[in-house]
């Protein structure tokens, strides 16, 4: 059907439907002539075919007018799953260094793997083969020569366990297991 996307006898559906291509172009070969493909839109934006820049990866999906309803043909269930996973940014672990006073080398752990302090402390205990002692808000870590500490975003050394877990993993830059008198000082309150 020649002519513009009119409203006379044409279904208004066409004017509002999401399709490839610029508005105003004729609908005969609906997505075929004079249409920029999804890929081309993306390519133009970054100038390279199959662009791999980090920016492109992180940004939200392309503007709505470039997305086609029902394409690519994957089940809603699967599509929803991808969205959920993206939102949780799976695969981006929070790796921090762990040092222990007296140990010859440092280790690295992924904070995201743990669901809370007990698990984390258990893991560190296993890693360095020692015991941390019991945490109490009042007295810090009792019953051991060691105190787990971390450097926060402000550069201060804090005792592990005081703040909620979620806050901890976002503010922790590195961990240090302090030993001896230094630990006792820190562990037993100010």
């Amino acid at each position: 059907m020649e002519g513009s996307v009119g409203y006379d006898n044409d279904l208004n559906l066409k004017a509002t439907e999401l399709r490839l291509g610029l508005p105003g172009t004729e609908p005969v070969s609906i997505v075929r002539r004079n249409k920029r493909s999804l890929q081309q839109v993306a390519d133009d934006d970054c100038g390279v075919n199959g662009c791999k820049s980090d920016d492109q990866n992180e940004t939200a999906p392309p503007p709505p007018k470039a997305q086609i309803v029902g394409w690519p043909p994957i089940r809603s269930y699967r599509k929803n799953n991808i969205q959920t996973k993206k939102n949780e940014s799976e695969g981006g672990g929070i790796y921090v260094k762990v040092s222990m006073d007296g140990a010859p080398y440092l280790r690295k752990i992924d904070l995201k793997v743990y669901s809370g302090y007990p698990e984390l402390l258990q893991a560190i205990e296993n890693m360095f083969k020692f015991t941390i002692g019991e945490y109490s808000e009042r007295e810090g870590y009792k019953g051991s020569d060691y105190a787990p500490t971390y450097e926060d975003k402000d550069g201060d050394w804090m005792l592990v366990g005081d703040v909620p877990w979620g806050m901890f993993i976002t503010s922790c830059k590195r961990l240090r297991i302090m030993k001896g008198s230094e630990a006792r000082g820190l562990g037993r309150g100010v």
Partner: protein
Amino acid sequence: MNYFPDEVLEHVFDFITSHKDRNSVSLVCKSWYKIERCSRQRVFIGNCYSISPERLIARFPGLKSLTLKGKPHFADFNLVPHDWGGFVYPWIKALAKSRIGLEELRLKRMVVSDESLELLSKSFVNFKSLVLVSCEGFTTDGLAAIAANCRFLRELDLQENEVDDHRGHWLSCFPESCTSLISLNFACLRGEVNLGALERLVSRSPNLKSLRLNRAVPLDTLQKLLMRAPQLVDLGIGSYVHDPFSEVYNKLKIAIQRCKSIRSLSGFLEVAPHCMSAIYPICGNLTFLNLSYAPGLHGNKLMKLIQHCRKLQRLWILDCIGDKGLGVVALTCKELQELRVFPSDPFGAGNAAVTEEGLVLVSAGCPKLNSLLYFCQQMTNAALITVAKNCPNFIRFRLCILDPIKPDPVTNQPLDEGFGAIVQSCKGLKRLSLSGLLTDQVFLYIGMYAEQLEMLSIAFAADSDKGMLYVLNGCKKLRKLEIRDCPFGDAALLEDVGKYETMRSLWMSSCEVTLGGCKSVAEKMPSLNVEIIDECEQMEFNLVDKQKVDKMYLYRTLVGHRKDAPEYVLIL
């Protein structure tokens, strides 16, 4: 054969199991029809609106297993509005009222309410198996009813359903007396499950062969479950995240090693890639591996895993495997028959990592390949021609280029020749999905060569009505044709309306067919339901024949217009 007593014929018919063959048997003569119908236990209904439950019950009094499919295939991609239809309740209600001893119900793309599930669970004493694929409309309350009431339940298999998870106690509803479970798949549920109840259930199910967990089942529970069920053949892992230095992980390694029967592995819905080595001991025996829900697994860790899977026959993977990873598959998986590569980033800008190269590598390395679903960045004619030469045994060939009208990037030509090579070489091809820049030419090839083709999916292709005509004229065995965004109009639609009676269904959306054309089909063919899906309800105001129809779905039926269509569906 008429001098054989009925019992003998019945015994002979027992050996005939395929639906097609049994249907053929029933057409031979009246007495065969009668014997066949009384002895038939399994019935497959590809379109729930093609027949009524009453007629089903009348014809097959011995029915034990029913398979029903509801919505058209394109409903999977949001092209069909939610409440279009496909309700299972009337079927269950009718079966419950009858004397049918239903034991197995398999549903695909149907709307299943909690009410239906409850009625199902209470109406059939010997009910054994419920399989729901791509269904919706129920919650975990419905599952609780099934668990509580089906005393001899063997199979509860939920695949990719949208379930409203009330985080309830449905698993705890399996009574202590339930020890008959063979298969339990709840991977698609999003909510918490009672882990203790799960452990106890698995402990008292010695016949459990298939267990697919959801994301809420953590690694330490997995380890306990595997210790109790070393006889598993099919395992779906929920969460696979843990500290590789922990005690639990060590225990898991031991537990996995005891599971010498596992042949099928899936899930990894949450995965810590550095823990994969625990899986290696069972990889050598795997015939099916589904990592399509595990985007956290890629790169070297993924390749290393695959290198252990030498006996793989079916592989479902995400495109983050890359062409290089597919090269590893080609070198390792010499028994591969089915490959599905899903997009990990469907709307991403060129981040998808497989191209024609990966496919060519697999085709060269895996001569037994016969089934393909491949989402990719691009495809070339040369590659398709090579694939056609390497793998003449394709039964299913579904290619999806993420940009649906992309030409061959090397030659800038349409992909007609490439797909043409596929249909010419693969004489047994039953299912084909096309994408990329395509003209009428590819349809000429399909009509000429795809003699066994039963299902064809077309999107954004062709130049004129000729394309559709080539297919309708040429593909004698065509059963399902689904078309979107193609310039096919009334001329093509009306050329041979009798053809549609030989098919299950035809879907056309965003094409050029008009209301008048559809009316014409409906008039000429009373044995078809011609449905116009008009979400914007334009039709109400403007019933003009030359108006283009946005979505048309027609299908053959023995029971006329359905009564449950919503307001925006016009049945002509």
